């Protein structure tokens, strides 16, 4: 699954996702990716967020919507991402999932939940600081 946030020169925000979902799913099963507020959310007055992971669980907590609303109240993107993850972790301590967040000034962050075999989350960033995309990572 790819989740992406783009913020243009003037702070206009868009977000999106695309996935082929979980292997061996029951036919008709849909994960969080196409659910607005779960797979991704964007509001140019606050920021954008996009999530990836076990969509059957994550979609129930609308992590992308929560992260954007937290940024609206002044949380920085890293803190907003962490809070969105911890909201899910309270109920499903070992769920597989991660989220990226960006605000309208170009600050960004990411967070993930530590689970067996998953202790670091890699994501990509492009901004005017670097010509080529930068590989970033965050410890879960």
């Amino acid at each position: 699954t790819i989740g992406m946030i783009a913020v243009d020169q003037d702070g206009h925000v868009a977000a999106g996702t695309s996935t082929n979902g979980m292997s061996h799913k029951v036919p008709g099963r849909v994960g969080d990716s196409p659910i607005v507020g779960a797979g991704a959310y964007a509001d140019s007055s606050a920021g954008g967020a996009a999530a990836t992971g076990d969509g059957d669980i994550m979609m129930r907590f609308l992590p992308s919507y929560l992260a954007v609303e937290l940024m609206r109240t002044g949380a920085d993107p890293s803190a907003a991402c962490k809070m969105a993850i911890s909201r899910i972790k309270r109920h499903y301590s070992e769920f597989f999932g991660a989220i990226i967040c960006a605000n309208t000034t170009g600050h960004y962050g990411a967070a993930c939940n530590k689970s067996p075999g998953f202790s670091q989350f890699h994501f990509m960033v492009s901004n005017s600081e670097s010509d080529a995309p930068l590989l970033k990572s965050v410890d879960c």
Partner: protein
Amino acid sequence: HASLPLVINTWPFKNATAAAWSVLQSGGSMLDAVQEGCARCEVEQCDGTVGYGGSPDESGETTLDALIMNGDTMEVGAVADLRRIKNAIGVARAVMERTDHTLLVGESASVFAENMGFLAEDLTTNKSVNIFSQWLGSNCQPNYRKNVFPDPSQSCGPYKPRAMLKETERAQHANAHSHD
């Protein structure tokens, strides 16, 4: 410190980042950038978790989900359980721009896409067939069934509902190569 413009995406899908970034650099909109970046992953089948030829369901079919959201207007286009169409993010954008709806799903979403000019084609590849046949050969493990018989932790379907519902510990099947 921060700077604009910015592209950020999940997982180390570098080509998607670069594709989106070049749209912004050439004056394209943030919507075009997101669509271009996600479409790049659909074409390149990023990690086998995006696009055609990956994550076959219990019947061996690959279906796609996608979403695009405009933070200026709060418009959204999304497709889920999309069949036979490779460019899922493009169809999501068409839902946003060609209907007043937010989300179209399943076979009807595929018919909408074909009507809007998207190419219908088989989303199966040798790789997804191999994944599926290996799964069948391992008694359909893992699967997402519970409270059915035959015992889904031992056997393939078809499944029937069991009389008694038993609370079971949710299995954790999601991982870096099978997730949303």
